């Protein structure tokens, strides 16, 4: 009996150790499993379902666009490629340039804005090659590689865009697939023309506007929400000691400069000037005119004057 009990106890301990091991495995696996799930949040690869596709072609991979950096004031071509598998045979897919231009299209889409490979300035899509032994879904298959070139403009919004690839086979069966493209913010602006002039200044007269305005253009994809001007005094070129003071000038959005903000020597004076990038177009950037006004001119002689230090125009992007 004692032997039997001892055997039972031993057997029980063994069982206990097994249970302990199972629990430990579950414990560790629990951590590992959820850790994997957590990391998968950032996974941007395209998952392709192979179910219910029948004999339609299948776009098995759409590449990314990297880096998504726009060019100020103009357009830039972005390229991506995609692989197509046709169960009904690779010959059903377009390869000639005429066929491809009709049956293949690439698009970039974001919040209702679409840029297509068929737009002006884009370079369209083209057949690159046929890959005979492409390993996909546990088998070697024959796929066609296509590449598309799309023009993106300087004012296209930053953030995630959807890349969409579409192809039609010889039986007019359409398929498409997607990936995402990250487009960077582009803070860019310009100020034109290159000079600011007062051609007819009358001594003692008030509110004399500059002969021309300065056009502030938004050549990027973020908004210009204001401009700061750091002015300096102007010195007489022939009679020393005579100055036109910085605080005799005012600036504002055209045509209200004379009621605008008074400038100050070596101080940044803010002018509210919204130049919205969403108002830019292919033909012209969004722009506003900045005007300058000489509010007063007293106690100086008629002569040429020159700034004693640089005037600074500053735009802040947040």
């Amino acid at each position, binding site marked *: 009996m004692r032997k039997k*009990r001892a055997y039972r106890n031993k057997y*029980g301990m063994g069982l*206990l150790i097994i*249970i*302990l091991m199972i*629990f430990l495995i579950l*414990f560790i696996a*629990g*951590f590992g*499993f*959820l*850790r994997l799930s*957590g990391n998968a*949040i950032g996974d941007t690869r395209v998952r392709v379902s192979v179910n219910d596709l029948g004999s339609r072609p299948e776009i098995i991979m759409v590449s990314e666009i990297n880096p998504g*950096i*726009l*060019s*100020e*004031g*103009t357009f830039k071509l972005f390229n991506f490629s995609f692989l197509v598998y046709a169960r009904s045979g690779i010959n059903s897919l377009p390869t000639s340039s005429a066929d491809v231009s009709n049956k293949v299209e690439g698009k970039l889409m974001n919040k209702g804005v679409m840029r297509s490979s068929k737009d002006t300035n884009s370079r369209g899509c083209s057949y690159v090659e046929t890959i005979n032994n492409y390993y996909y879904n546990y088998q070697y298959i024959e796929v066609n590689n296509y590449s598309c070139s799309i023009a993106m403009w300087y004012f296209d919004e*930053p*953030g995630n865009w959807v890349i969409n690839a579409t192809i039609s086979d010889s039986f007019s069966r359409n398929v498409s697939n997607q990936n995402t493209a990250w487009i960077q*913010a*582009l*803070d*860019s*602006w*310009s*100020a034109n*023309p*290159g*000079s*600011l*002039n*007062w051609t*007819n*200044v*009358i*001594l003692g007269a008030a509110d004399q506007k500059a002969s021309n305005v*300065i056009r502030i*253009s938004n*050549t990027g994809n*973020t908004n210009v929400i204001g401009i700061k001007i750091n002015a300096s005094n*102007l010195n007489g070129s022939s009679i020393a000691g005579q100055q*036109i003071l910085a605080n005799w000038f005012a600036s504002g959005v055209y045509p209200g400069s004379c009621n605008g903000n008074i400038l100050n020597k070596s101080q940044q004076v803010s002018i509210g000037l919204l130049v919205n990038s969403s108002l830019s177009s292919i033909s012209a950037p969004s722009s506003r005119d900045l005007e300058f006004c*000489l509010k007063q001119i007293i106690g100086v002689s*008629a002569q*040429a*004057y*020159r*700034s004693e230090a*640089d*005037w*600074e*125009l*500053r*735009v*802040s*992007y*947040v």
Partner: protein
Amino acid sequence: MFNKMKMKMKMKRKMKMKISMGMIIFFIIGISLASAIGISSDYYSGNPLIMHPGETRNIVFGELQNNVGNTDLVLRANLIDGREIAKLTDSNLEYSVPANTEGQRVNMKVSIPRRNFKGQYEISVEFNNLASSGAGTVPLTLTTEKTIKVIVETGDSSSINPEKPAFNLGWLLLIIFVIILTAYFAIQNKKLHKVR
């Protein structure tokens, strides 16, 4: 005759007026403005830099470009806000950006103190154009200031730490196991006492 005299007087007065007007009409200056400055960056109001306490990261603050106009730019970068966490790491902070070029990177190191708190920092860098706008005019600098937000997130939020539920589940399993084990030994001990 009198009228003629009057007319001559008037003409003379007008001439004098014209001369005196000529004296007070003058050109002030031409203020030249430089071409555009472009900074491309991953970080903007819609995409702040997310970091955690104690974390250090090397980032590309921005890439400079000069695609508008035909003037070469020399831009000097100056960190004006966020010195407590950020440092510009390029050896030369004067960046030469020739006309119609882009891709000049501005590198930065960001280090968040090892303190367990949520918060927000701002890093601002100004880019002054050092290139002269030309002779015969007043030089004028064009400056672009870019600010990026750094959001510090701690590990206690389930939204940024999806491992938290796993930790709880694991501990729950361990507690259940310890209870079962204790109960098992208690029963075994009772049995042994009964036998003795």
